[in-house]
């Protein structure tokens, strides 16, 4: 890993260090583990949003074109992704990461 990335991680870790000390957790969440979640969360949030829209669009299309299509479409999705994608509707306006 480059020195630049490492420095960013140190910065992120120190940035979120205070959060972990304030957390009311009975297990230690770990400062580094909190920091990396913000980084990963930032990376995956957009992808997850697209996935959510993709599956909801797929479901809408399926309902327009009838049941047989719906079965086909939902059957083609990987189970975990379909579960996550179809069943959640997080408020996108809160995405500040």
């Amino acid at each position, binding site marked *: 890993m480059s020195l630049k990335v490492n420095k960013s991680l140190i910065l992120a870790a*120190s940035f979120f260090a205070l959060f972990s000390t304030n957390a009311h957790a009975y*297990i230690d969440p770990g400062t580094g583990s*909190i920091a990396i979640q913000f980084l990963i*969360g930032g990376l995956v*949030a957009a992808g997850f949003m697209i996935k959510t829209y993709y599956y909801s669009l797929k479901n809408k299309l399926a309902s327009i074109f009838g049941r047989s299509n719906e079965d086909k479409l939902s059957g083609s999705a990987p189970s975990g*992704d379909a579960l996550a994608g179809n069943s959640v509707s*997080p408020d996108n306006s809160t995405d*500040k*990461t």
Partner: protein
Amino acid sequence: MSVNRIPGSFRDPSGFLYLSEETLLRQVNQSYAAHFDHLVSSGLYEQLVTEGLLIEHQVVDNSLRATDDVYCVLKPELIPHLSYPYEWSFSQLKDAALLTLDVQRQALEKGMTLKDASAYNVQFLRGRPVFIDSLSFEINEEGAPWIAYRQFCQHFLAPLAIMANVDISLNQLFRTNIDGIPLHIATSMLPWRTKLNPGLYMHIWLHVRSQVAATQSQRSSEQSASNKPSKQFSQNAFYGLIDSLRGAIQKLEWKPGGSEWFDYYQANNNYGEDGLEYKENLVKQFVSKAKPSSVWDLGGNTGHFSRLAAAEGASVVCWDIDPGCVESNYRQVSQEQETNILPLLIDLSNPSPSIGWANSERLSISERGPVEMIMALGLIHHLAIANNVPLPDVSEFLKKNCKWLLIEFVPRGDGQIDKLLSSRQDVFSEYTPEGFEKAFSQDFEIVDKVPVPATKRTLYLMQAF
């Protein structure tokens, strides 16, 4: 009223498990009241129980409380046999991981989050993993990340990654690391190519770098009060994190096969077709005579004989030393939706010990017994010859753990014994049918004994004194 706290239930201040007059109860403490109420009023509890993801409980009278700090008292459904991640096959740990993520996702949808993600929060019930800690749910503080993320990676992702990419037996590291596999240990073993897997790169490789960076920043006191975070962990980021972990876990695969015992009954079983069928009938006959409700099938391979006992109505734990056999057995349990067989991994020459705080958090194999019947088919020579355990010691261990014993004696002249003795000195003068009966007669009454045709082996049904 006598109250015995369960030793493994002390970490979480929200409540604890205890035995009251031999009934297992869980006290919910006052400090957890708001979270417990939300779990129920949001419909999350009912939803998870209906889907078979969370253990069901009954709320019982507060007069059964253990301390005055009580909010309410729960009586959870009992798990017939407790098991631990160092006894699970690859797919058992993988299914437990996916269950934890599914529970976490549904919790998020109801405004809650899992405050811990320990593999010990999962047990196997009726062939499926189930989340057993009703007090793990906490009202989700808006903008907060997942407190249990590190624990999830240590308890599930890292062990599965090293089992799939380094060696399948490395789940044994759970025995020495009660809080899961530290990520720096995982990265010290994982091959470089795992960095090309985005899920493993982010959640393990980058994660460990972040942990190192955090330690460095704490040492150099770079943080200050002005560093108070202004950013929030968005809902999309949270769902994305769970989805990403799910993808990483799902991509990890391990295929059984090629091991010494994996295809034993198909390839080389020392019985021939007639002998095997006769042995099956004998096992059924002996099991139906003893009518055990609980059975341990020690050295049970892929569960061939366990299924005969299960068909007689017993709840069976099929223990085996070979991760391939346990994996294959579990896959069959899942596929056939079998409800009364639990395949588990064990090396009987070094069985699961008591571990954790005061050596009492996780129970040894004997502390989880005794059962009504132990089946030890094709096993005795592995203990007495391959592992040099004197026959009276084998008998004593078995007696400690069962009432009925269905055991097969494998004498010299059998193909398996010849193989074991081919490369070593035969120092086992007591290892004869007479020596076997003499040793076991100290602890058991021999109820029946029948030679297995076309073999040199004999099946015994014994009852402990």
